[in-house]
């Protein structure tokens, strides 16, 4: 089924609206609620900002204007690519975010691959492993992973592979090698909901009449699973994989803190600690835009992969977001 241009335009408009409303909401929570973070940062008794700098910040954010006018000012500046200045070190927020984004995007990309591979492995084990006991074991893995805080996974990996076995350095930057443990930390956590959805998908595809026909036709089990059941049962899990990107970017705050990396997660951690509103706003917008773009891409590419999607029944194929809330 081909995509109609009108449907694509509508979907694009929806995405743009969500991103714009996200900006309004986060701006409102950060700056319009009583207790202005910029003012309280300037008046912070423990770490006061020198008067000249404070003056510059107040003049820049025009704190003397009424709230709505401040908001419009921030929107017009945003459209010119000006994200404001960090309240901690006075650097441009756009520089801070751009600097950290590359490292975190690589980390999230590797973690996404890890979570897809792990989910596939666990789901295949849970549905097709030879003994019921073994299948049951595979089936409990996602539930346990869902109940494990991300920081615990990271700390256990650090303790075992860096301190006990000494395979990785916990401090030194070893290039691509240093990516392995944080990517595993993020990937293990993210794989759990994907594995659960994939298990469900594979089971229902295995019960479909076409699978019975193939088995009756004497096709080898391996090729039935690999060529047919996987293709048919993996669709909801692939959608969920797209939704996971946001969680991976957010989870990088914890992974980068534990493994002393300096990406977007680190920037976020520092910004929240210092209650640096402009930087937090920028980070949330970056994550929201990436998340929306990835899901837009998944939605637009699907009808090309699977002709059944795109029709009126398509709503049923998308998994619910609560499933990845953890």
């Amino acid at each position, binding site marked *: 089924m081909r995509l109609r241009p009108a449907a694509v335009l509508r979907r694009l408009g929806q995405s743009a*609206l*969500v*991103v714009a*409303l*996200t900006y309004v*909401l*986060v701006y409102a*929570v*950060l700056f319009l*609620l009583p*207790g202005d*973070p910029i003012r309280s940062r300037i008046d912070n008794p423990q770490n006061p900002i020198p008067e000249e700098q404070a003056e510059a910040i107040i003049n820049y954010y025009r704190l003397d204007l009424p709230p709505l006018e401040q908001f419009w000012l921030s929107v017009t500046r945003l459209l010119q690519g000006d994200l404001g200045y960090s309240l901690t070190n006075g650097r441009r927020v756009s520089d801070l975010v751009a600097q950290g984004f590359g490292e975190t995007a690589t980390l999230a990309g590797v973690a996404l691959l890890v979570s897809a591979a792990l989910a596939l492995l666990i789901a295949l084990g849970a549905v097709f492993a030879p003994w019921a006991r073994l299948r049951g074991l595979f089936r409990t893995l996602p*539930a*346990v992973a*869902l*109940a*494990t*805080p*991300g*920081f*615990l996974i990271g*700390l*256990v990996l*650090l*303790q075992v592979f860096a*301190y006990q076995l000494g395979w990785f350095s916990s401090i030194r930057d070893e290039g691509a090698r240093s990516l392995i443990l944080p990517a595993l930390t993020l990937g293990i956590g993210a794989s759990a909901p994907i594995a659960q959805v994939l298990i469900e998908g594979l089971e229902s595809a295995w019960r479909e009449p076409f699978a019975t026909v193939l088995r009756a036709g004497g096709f080898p089990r391996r090729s039935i699973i690999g060529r047919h059941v996987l293709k048919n049962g993996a669709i909801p899990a692939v959608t969920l994989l797209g939704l996971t990107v*946001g*969680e991976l*970017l*957010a*989870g990088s*705050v*914890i992974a980068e*803190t*534990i493994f002393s990396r300096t990406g977007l997660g680190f920037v*976020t*951690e520092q*910004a*929240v*600690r210092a*209650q*640096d*509103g402009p930087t*937090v706003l920028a*980070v*949330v917008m970056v*994550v*929201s835009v990436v*998340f*929306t773009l990835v899901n837009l891409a998944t939605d637009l590419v699907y009808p090309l992969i699977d002709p059944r999607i795109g029709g009126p029944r398509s709503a049923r194929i998308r998994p*619910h*977001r*609560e499933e990845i*809330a*953890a």
Partner: protein
Amino acid sequence: MSAVLHRIRSAPRTRPRLGVVDVLALGVLALVALAIVAPGVLAPADPLEAVPGGTLQPPGSAGLFGTDYLGRDVLSRIVHGTGRTVLASSIAVAIGLGAGSALGLIAAYFGGWADAVVSRVVDVLLSIPGLLLSMVVVVALGFGSTNAAIAVGVASIAAFARLMRSEVLRVRELGFVESARHLGVRPWAVLLRHVLPNSAAPVLSMTALQFGNAILWIAALSFLGYGAPPPLPEWGLLVSEGRGYLSSSPWLTLLPGLVIVATVVAISRVSALIAETRRTRP
């Protein structure tokens, strides 16, 4: 007629059979409850008392879970931290459940532009990952355990709102609700007496699940240092405190971490039980 009614009333309710895992899960939750009500029974030692000579003792030698870098008993810090952790999660779930259900009800009941507005807000909330959203709220409100709990609550509003909306829409179309409407029952009475009770089970199951999630998120916020201030014990904070001694005394991190995992697994098992009860009910 009365014979039929009698038969219906006395029909045995099929209960889901409790497996070993379910009994274990209920046992864990009973321990958690005991730790909240009477922490002294499980751990007699003072959670704040430092013993200068007995620092970083491994589990078994001094106390069941060993001692931390100040010589405080780890078991009793975990047990005394339970109340704080569970209270924070309760606040979070109350906010999520209250605000989320109200939004979902309004959207489903009034429809039209109310539904459109609520649905857009929910879309926006869902497009920000929960941990990040709660950090935004923490930046706005400031640090502290109550603020962290509120932040996590705000981050879970969208999930409740969506569930409530779809449940009300589902139940509203059922035959008996339609009959009630045709009999002239007032709209609010239909909503409160027929629609709400019948959408309670999935919402309850979701509440239990979100309670587990709230524990994880609040632990994550305190681990990053945005939650309860030290030296008060809180589960995420305990893991965070042990982090500096990870290579030499890993139990400081692992034991509180495992307590979190056991509790959340138990809660999610109970949540699944609630969902099963609903499915097997005649």
